[in-house]
């Protein structure tokens, strides 16, 4: 009985230690901050500068071909891009694959209609302090970060829809 109590107390102590260390999650680039400006090269070879998209709502997505939830998310973005592009929505998908052909292959297979920005060295990921794959920033017309989405799950589509509709009204 004493041995069982000691074991249980030790396990309790472990749990406390790990909760202490673990619950302090680092934050990425923050809500209410101005979205850091950058110039990136797309798959199509063109340059794109974030500040030139001022006046549009920008979904700034960070992804990789090796990330399963990213692959769920991109076809959804394709659909809303088709729906809201004409009224001021832009999507930039920043890809971190070391080899551009991987990103090109997946973009082609999924039939993506929005620009894919190549960032093999991860500089943009560093700039936006990405802590999770995938991460999407919703940037308002004023260039401020309106919200941050970590990951992609069943709750995200309705949230994106309502956010975009609200921001379009401004």
């Amino acid at each position, binding site marked *: 009985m004493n041995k069982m109590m000691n074991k249980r107390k030790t396990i309790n102590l472990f749990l406390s230690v790990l909760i202490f260390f673990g619950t302090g999650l680092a934050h990425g680039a923050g809500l209410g901050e101005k979205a850091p400006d950058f110039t990136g090269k797309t798959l199509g070879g063109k340059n794109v500068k974030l500040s030139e998209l001022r006046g549009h709502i920008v979904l700034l997505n960070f992804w990789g071909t090796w990330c399963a939830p*990213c692959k769920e998310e991109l076809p959804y973005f394709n659909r809303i891009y088709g729906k809201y592009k004409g009224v001021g929505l832009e999507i930039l998908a920043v890809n971190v694959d070391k080899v551009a052909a991987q990103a090109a292959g997946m973009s082609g297979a999924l039939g993506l209609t929005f620009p894919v920005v190549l960032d093999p060295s991860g500089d943009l990921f*560093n700039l936006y302090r990405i802590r999770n794959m995938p991460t999407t920033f919703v940037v308002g017309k004023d260039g401020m970060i309106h919200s941050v989405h970590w990951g992609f799950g069943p709750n995200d589509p309705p949230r994106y829809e309502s956010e975009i509709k609200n921001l379009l009204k401004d």
Partner: protein
Amino acid sequence: MKRSAWLLMGLMIILTGVLGCSSVQPWEREYLADETMQFDPDPLMAQWHQHVREIREGGRGGFNGTGGGCGCR
């Protein structure tokens, strides 16, 4: 048994401090996401080999653990 539990706790705390310094960024986990970089990625094969070990070896345990992978959420 009590002594090895204390030893383990000390080891864990030291490890948490020392190894916490390593910094693989979330976007650098491409290789770790691959199945060849994971321990026992195939549950059925791992289950069968574990079963064979349990029947034929006197030793038990030690090869269950969670971690690695892409950490994508």
